[in-house]
């Protein structure tokens, strides 16, 4: 049975959270040990998609007024406040599923299993009714509707995005306990706001367990769905230092955060 690192990182800033994910991917590319990580955000933070154009959909001045970070994954912006976020990474060849869509479905299995375990009706939009309209990425992730969105009791719950690079697969996703509609109204232009009738959060679904309990459920279902064993782990000293470098050089860097399209080459840092 393949062993994956399991990190429960707790709360941190957006830049640190993205830097830790980046560092774990680097470690995995050298040691080939997949990882699963759970974390929260403090302070609340807006994350932008890798290529998201900040001039569309966001209200003026958002980048100056709120904590903002740019992700390595695509898609639209997410306001991370009262939520649990997961990230995972592995070698594509480690999963007995190939293809982008098939891998995505396989990976999201642990989310669907968790929602079903809690008694909710859950599935991909494409499997639950008429095909939703497909289209461009919306400025606000939760406003978008597409075939591979996860719907719970008929509404979109959270958002997930995947990045594939050099034979490695990275995916992270946001699971909102409670969407802060008043905050969303200060971030996105009205025409780009999610429609309340089409999205949901765990609070609205009646979920009352603590964050750690949800983390336990997700971890347990990931093990079952992928046939893996999660081993508790923490960042090592070298990884902590490396994450610090990424947080400083990239994820706190206003050029990285604000640009709509970036240079293809990442900021080069010496490999420790």
């Amino acid at each position, binding site marked *: 049975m393949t062993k994956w690192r399991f990190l429960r990182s707790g709360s941190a800033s957006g830049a640190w959270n993205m830097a830790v994910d980046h560092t774990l991917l680097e470690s995995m590319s050298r040691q080939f040990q997949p990882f699963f990580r759970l974390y929260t955000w403090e302070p609340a933070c807006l994350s932008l998609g890798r290529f998201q154009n900040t001039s569309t959909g966001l209200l003026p001045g958002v980048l100056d007024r709120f904590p903002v970070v740019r992700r390595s994954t695509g898609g639209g912006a997410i306001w991370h406040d009262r939520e649990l976020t997961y990230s995972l990474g592995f070698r594509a060849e480690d999963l007995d599923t190939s293809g982008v869509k098939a891998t995505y479905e396989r990976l999201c299995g642990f989310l669907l299993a968790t929602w079903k375990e809690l008694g909710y009706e859950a599935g991909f939009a494409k499997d639950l009714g008429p095909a939703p309209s497909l289209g461009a*990425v919306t400025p606000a992730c939760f406003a978008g509707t597409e*075939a591979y969105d996860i719907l719970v009791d008929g509404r979109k719950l959270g958002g997930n995005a995947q990045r*594939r690079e050099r034979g490695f697969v990275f995916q992270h996703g946001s699971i909102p306990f409670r969407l802060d509609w008043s905050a969303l109204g200060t971030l996105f232009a009205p025409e780009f706001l999610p429609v309340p009738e089409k999205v949901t959060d765990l609070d609205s679904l009646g979920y009352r367990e603590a964050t750690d309990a949800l983390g336990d459920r997700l971890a347990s279902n990931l093990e079952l769905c992928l046939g893996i064993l999660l081993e508790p782990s923490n960042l090592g000293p070298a990884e902590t230092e490396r994450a610090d470098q990424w947080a400083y050089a990239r994820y706190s860097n206003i050029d990285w955060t604000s640009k709509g399209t970036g240079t293809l080459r990442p900021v080069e840092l010496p490999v420790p």
Partner: protein
Amino acid sequence: MKLFSLSGEWVEAVESGWRVGLSVENVSDLGDVTFIELPLVGTRVAPDSPAAVIEAVKAATDFHPPVSGTVRLVNAAVSGNPGLLNQDPEGEAWLIELANVVPGDLEPLLTEVAWRAKVHRE
């Protein structure tokens, strides 16, 4: 005549150089493409490093060219209209055109017939 890498990137000689792109099968698997970042003209690219990034609705993936070479043209039509890649990945939606291609890189590539036979058999 197009030649394909095992992972589904193609290269084809044209009058002015070598065009490279992504197979119909790969693009279909990605889904609706929403953004394409192409390299700068003059960049040296090689199969072992990403030359472009293609973002679809659920996954962003690196594009590795099947051969090494120097970028002499990028297809502005496809970067300006990413959906074109879904419509015609092996035609109008080529990604970059290379010069100074390393001839040895072509040797392990498969003909279109051989590549399709392989991927559809698997």
